[in-house]
């Protein structure tokens, strides 16, 4: 038995950056509420939120690239499956909304669902190689 540790990429650096991005998203969302709806500063804050998320993706990508090739392969497979499933779920739900089901605010749920499904995917795919 040989346990693969694909989560090694989530090192201190990634965790610190993730927490910093999360803190910025919370603070900027709070500041954004105080500002007027058409405020230019609110647009800037929204852009900075998107930029912070992009920076986080970039840092995580760099960390995955430094893994050894099997662990990297596991992440790539999990990401591909989860991305395809999430796109299918969002598109599929749109059909159901047209049929009368309540709409889901994917802008709120897509990121956490993606992260949880990615983690589950990594665990399941890693078992294939043990």
């Amino acid at each position, binding site marked *: 038995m*040989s346990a*693969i*540790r694909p989560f090694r990429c989530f090192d201190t650096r990634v965790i610190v950056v993730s927490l910093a991005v999360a803190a910025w998203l919370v603070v900027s969302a709070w500041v954004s509420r105080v500002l007027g709806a058409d405020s230019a500063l609110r647009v800037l804050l929204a852009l900075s939120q998107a930029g912070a998320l992009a920076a986080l993706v970039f840092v995580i990508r760099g960390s995955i690239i430094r893994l050894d*090739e*099997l*662990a990297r*392969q596991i992440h790539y497979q999990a990401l591909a499956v989860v991305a395809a499933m999430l796109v299918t779920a969002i598109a599929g739900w749109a059909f159901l909304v047209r049929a009368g089901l309540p709409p889901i605010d994917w802008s709120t749920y897509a990121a956490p669902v993606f992260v949880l499904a990615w983690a589950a995917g990594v665990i399941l795919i890693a078992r*294939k*190689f*043990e």
Partner: protein
Amino acid sequence: MKNSVRELRTVRNWSQGDLAEKLGVSRQTVNAIETEKYDPSLPLALKIARLFSLRVEEIFGPAKQG
């Protein structure tokens, strides 16, 4: 894909950890290759061949059909 990495390693009295260190990968990757659950990338296959002074096709071959 079949391979003879385990045989080549044990003949040299190397542990999986030793081989992993020489190849710059994790021991888990070596184990997955030896148990034929993972086919290495071409660069890693070439590295393995170079380490054992063999050609890639002398170490790796197609799995038996059926």
